[in-house]
């Protein structure tokens, strides 16, 4: 497959995953308004913006705590609108769909008509939607339905597209984005573990990571903060945990370049993917190591992205001559 097209598919998928994460965080946040104190709601907005690394309309959340007050001032409608439909915000749901669609357009020869149709139709309908159409009715449902469109796209992809290189790069993009965003979400909940006074509802974190039901199946609906945290990091069978993503990434790279992960010397990307997996499978699960683990996941996944690009997308031509 063309390297440029692999690049497009990878980003098509990353943007869509990011959109999915954004939609889910918004849905959970909008729902939390109904049964939480205003301080909790404000803290929720702060975590949302920080997890997605988007500067809110009032200021940059990465600098200084005094800005948290601005979330109390700005109303939920403004913030939800900013994250849903604001075109000037590159992190808004509709912007992310737009970017995903533009990447898909440039990779049209590799994706099926059904995939394009699903992506394009949903984009066109989001483009023509406005927050006030549903805000006073059922905002949470809107986000759920939009999320369902992404699941539909994935179903169409998994069942219609040949499970070859294109599929591998799409899957790689999805889990690369997932591991990075989820790490940020977890890191923003981490301080609350040590905060004795907090009355934080930890089920929100599970819902943010689409893992409420898997958690309840594994444990019970009794929510224990530390169990929630380690579940989302180390559990191997739930698709939204860090461990699951790391396994997918490593397997995906193995399919994309079987020799690179098997023959000496191993490709750098394969080594990093292996390290990432090892950390999440065999790494420490002690409480004092949590911050270090998350920082390491962040470092490795960024390095992995760079190595994937260096090896498969933007490689120097003279290293790849000749071949047929």
């Amino acid at each position, binding site marked *: 497959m*063309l*390297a*440029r*097209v692999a690049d497009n598919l990878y980003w098509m998928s990353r943007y869509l995953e990011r959109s999915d994460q954004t939609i889910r965080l918004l849905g959970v946040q909008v729902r939390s308004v109904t049964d939480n104190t205003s301080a909790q709601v404000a803290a929720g907005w702060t975590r949302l913006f920080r997890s997605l690394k988007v500067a809110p309309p009032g200021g940059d959340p990465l600098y200084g705590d005094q800005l948290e007050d601005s979330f109390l001032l700005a109303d939920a409608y403004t913030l939800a609108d900013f994250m849903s439909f604001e075109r000037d915000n590159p992190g808004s749901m509709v912007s992310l769909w737009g970017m995903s669609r533009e990447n898909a357009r440039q990779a*049209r020869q590799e994706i099926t008509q059904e995939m394009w149709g699903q992506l394009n139709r949903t984009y066109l309908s989001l483009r023509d939607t406005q927050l006030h159409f549903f805000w006073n009715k059922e905002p949470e449902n809107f986000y759920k339905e939009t999320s369902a469109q992404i699941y539909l796209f994935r179903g169409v992809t998994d069942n219609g597209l040949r499970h070859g290189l294109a599929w591998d790069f799409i899957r790689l993009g999805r889990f690369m984005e997932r591991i990075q965003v989820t790490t940020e979400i977890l890191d923003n909940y981490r301080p609350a573990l040590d905060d004795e006074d907090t009355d934080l509802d930890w089920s929100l974190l599970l819902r943010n990571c689409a893992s409420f039901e898997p958690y309840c199946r594994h444990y019970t609906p009794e929510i224990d903060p530390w169990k929630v945290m380690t579940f989302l990091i180390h559990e191997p069978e739930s698709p939204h945990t860090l461990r699951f993503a790391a396994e997918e990434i490593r397997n995906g790279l193995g399919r994309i370049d079987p020799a690179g992960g098997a023959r000496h010397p191993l490709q750098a990307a394969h080594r990093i993917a292996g390290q990432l997996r090892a950390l999440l499978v065999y790494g420490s699960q002690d409480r004092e190591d949590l911050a270090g683990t998350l920082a390491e996941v962040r470092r490795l996944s960024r390095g992995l992205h760079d190595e994937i690009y260096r090896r498969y997308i933007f490689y120097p*031509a003279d290293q790849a*001559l*000749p*071949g*047929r």
Partner: protein
Amino acid sequence: MTHTAVHPGAAPAFRQYDHNPTFYDEMFEGDGSPRQHCSDFFETIRETPPDDLRQIQERVTRSFLHEGITFTVYGDEQTIERVFPIDCLPRIVRGDEWDDVARGLEQRLRALNLFLHDIYHRGHIIRDGVIPAELVYGNKHYRIEMRGVEVPHGAYVSVCGTDLVRTHDGFAVLEDNLRVPSGVSYMLACRDAIKRSMPRLFRRSRVRDVEQYSRLLLETLRSLAPPQVSDPSIVLLTPGVYNSAYYEHAFLARQMGIELVEGRDLLVHNRRVYMRTTAGLRQVDVIYRRIDDDFIDPVTFREDSVLGVPGLFHAYRAGRVVIANAPGTGVADDKAVYAYVPRIIKYYLGEESLIKPIPTTLCREREGLAYTLANLDKLVVKMVGESGGYGMLVGPHASATEQKEFAAALRANPDDYISQPTLALSRAPCLIGAHIEPRHVDLRPFILQSERTEIVPGGLCRVALKKGSLVVNSSQGGGSKDAWIVDVPEAAGPAAAASA
């Protein structure tokens, strides 16, 4: 003046139909009755409530939108995506008429390919005085770099899209598009949409298939590959996503299962062309290019091109890669060379042109200029080397001021112009709002030529949707419709009588 025929029991949709005998009507005889091969279609449409027709039209348009068959209009504030206007009523052409046209198209392209080979080699046709040397060698599309280059099967043009019009005198060639003709994806998408929205009528109508186009194109490109390559690697070279025909490029690449590449995906090393894949560089054997000559190779042609591939032309000359269509074919679809095509056919094939030419006057000749200036209000004057409906004057539709301005331009640079009589282009019924009205149409069939010639029965039928307009280009308010080539069952003649 209108000629609205009032038929007892005429359907509401046709009530305002203007039967003007000046123009050949694709569906109706001069007396307003439907042509025999259209009668079943007409009956069906007549019985369809206008609301249903509108729904069909909306469905077809929506399917284009969802497919992404749009073009982008770049405005100041925001960019808008527009759907290509499509009319849901097909233009219907009788099979035997089409067969005659197809023979003529094949003849024409065969002769033009021989012409291109000749002018890039010995130039016999010029030495024999059939065509003036300056028309060929002085043409801006003549590529001196192509001299002596051997092209597989002599197919300089392997993909051609010829614009045909019809008058009361039959079909005529308006223009040969021999460089990078586009529109075939609209033909296929139109067909697909129409088939889905009127499946039963379509099946009943015995329409000839066009769906095999992509397969035939792939076969054509394969047959151009260097003979030593058994499984050629074929790519489609596009200028990129901002090109207005990008949808078509992606569509064809997908249908043929070949890579859609941009210039930046290719590189030339040691006179071989490679594409950058995720598994390293891979050699390319055939390039179906959809970018203009000028932009193919910044080393050989325009040096400011960022769309092309440096060194591509050298690899081409060395025979390591095939480019289709070959560079330099534009000289043969030039508007001035057009006037000589009947003579070109006669010269190489010894045959008369099967499709009637439109009488063309060259303003570069003194009598031609005088005649054109004297009849500016009756003629269509076109600028040589322009396309897309730009740089032309439709005399009868132009104001006195426009004519005056054009006359001045004409006197200043007579070499740049040709003139032709204003043709009474045929009209076909189109759904305009809730009514069916006639609009002018043309037809662009696609011809593939390498070892043999293939023409899919049909083409892109373009419509001038503005009332009275003769300009069908999409940049100027044109739309498209499906073209049905139908085989009419033998009329109940002696055979039917005998079996009865």
